């Protein structure tokens, strides 16, 4: 919002006069810079301190949220490993100087022994009805089936499209389905293993989720398969 009172308001703001306080005559530029510099430094100091206090809490929370989601869609494993797509292959090691946000990232579930590959948790996103829908889905590389899905962020229509996030029945419809998925109208499916029931009245939102999974897999599948084959050996 601007500091300029909007003309539609009922009148000038505040009780005080609008004239600035009497400026001290001729302040040296040095003092101006110094004032700003010092206040900047103080502000920085304050921020750094607060950051140091809050950062671990925030990071831990983020980590927990991610972990929850990853483990939920992996449906089984209790630990996982983060993989980055570098030069067409997944590797757990982040190359020096690379920004992890710009790389495709998946999470490989680890079996009881802490080493065996047990499914992938894969993030996917696609523009939906209102805005981008982000989700995480668990995927079984052996037969290409979906283990579970969880919509992480969406701004779909409340009561309609947001059921992709809020309606457990919708998410349950993905479990065990073979990719690539095909959306069908609820109750109209033929029973094929790739069919997923869409939400009545929220076809666009439902299809967004399905398409996000399909396109992400289409892009990453070679690398995922290669990694799975490597791990199986």
């Amino acid at each position, binding site marked *: *919002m*601007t*500091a*300029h009172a*909007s*003309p*539609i*308001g009922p009148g000038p703001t505040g009780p005080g006069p609008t004239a600035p306080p009497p400026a001290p005559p001729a302040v040296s530029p040095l003092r101006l810079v110094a004032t700003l510099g010092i206040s900047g430094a103080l*502000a*920085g100091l304050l*921020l*750094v301190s*607060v*950051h140091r206090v809050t950062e671990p809490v925030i990071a831990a929370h983020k980590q927990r949220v991610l972990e929850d989601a990853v483990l939920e869609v992996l449906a089984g494993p209790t630990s996982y490993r983060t993989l980055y797509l570098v030069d067409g292959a997944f590797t757990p090691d982040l190359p020096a100087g690379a*920004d992890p*946000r*710009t790389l495709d990232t998946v999470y490989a579930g680890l079996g009881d022994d802490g080493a065996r590959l047990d499914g992938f948790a894969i993030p996917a996103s*696609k*523009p*939906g*009805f*209102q*805005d*981008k829908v982000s989700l995480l889905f668990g995927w079984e590389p052996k037969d290409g089936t979906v283990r579970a899905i969880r919509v992480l962020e969406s701004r779909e*229509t409340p009561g309609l499209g947001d059921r992709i996030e809020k309606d457990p029945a919708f998410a349950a419809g993905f479990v065990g389905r073979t990719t690539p998925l095909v959306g069908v109208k609820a109750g109209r499916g033929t029973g094929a293993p790739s069919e997923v029931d869409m939400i009545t009245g929220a076809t*666009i939102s439902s*299809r*967004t989720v399905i398409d996000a999974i399909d396109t992400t897999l289409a892009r990453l599948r070679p690398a995922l398969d290669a990694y799975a084959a490597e791990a199986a050996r």
Partner: protein
Amino acid sequence: MSDLLWILLSAMVVNNFTLSLFLGLCPFLGVSGRVETALRMGLANIFVLVLTSLCAWALNTFVLVYAPFLRVISFIVVIASLVQIVEMAVKKFSPTLFRQLGIYLPLITTNCAILGLAIFQTNRGYGLFQGLAFAVGAGLGLTLALVLMASIRETTELSDVPDVTRGAGLVLIVAGTLSLAFMGFAGLLSGA
């Protein structure tokens, strides 16, 4: 390419900066009494938004990776200086343009659309071109909303608006209706 187009259209109509994200409301509710003014204000905004997007991208890529907590401060400082520099540059190189846009530039500094753009762009992790598409879309969206509101207000000025609703009340109801109408764009380019 379709990604960039979606970002642009999304910021422009689907999630219009003003009508859906409530950014840039001050000029929308206040300054937009005349269509010409609204148009110039919108153009000035597009200009500054694009520059801001560039700066925010540069800051995010080269500076804020190391000190994310300085984000708000550095954005606001950069935007303020940016507007100052633009104002000076325009004044020097195109006095005509300055006469037309000049008075709007200071208003833009504290327009939350500019800071909003920088922050949204950062939160969504947009790259350089995505950011530019976002900025252009947002600016066009702002301009569209401003011009629509201005032309509607020119008409309602000539209507027998009851005293009770005259002013902010009516403007907000109109904005609400515009916002309802823009819901028609929901899902644009997503169903295909």
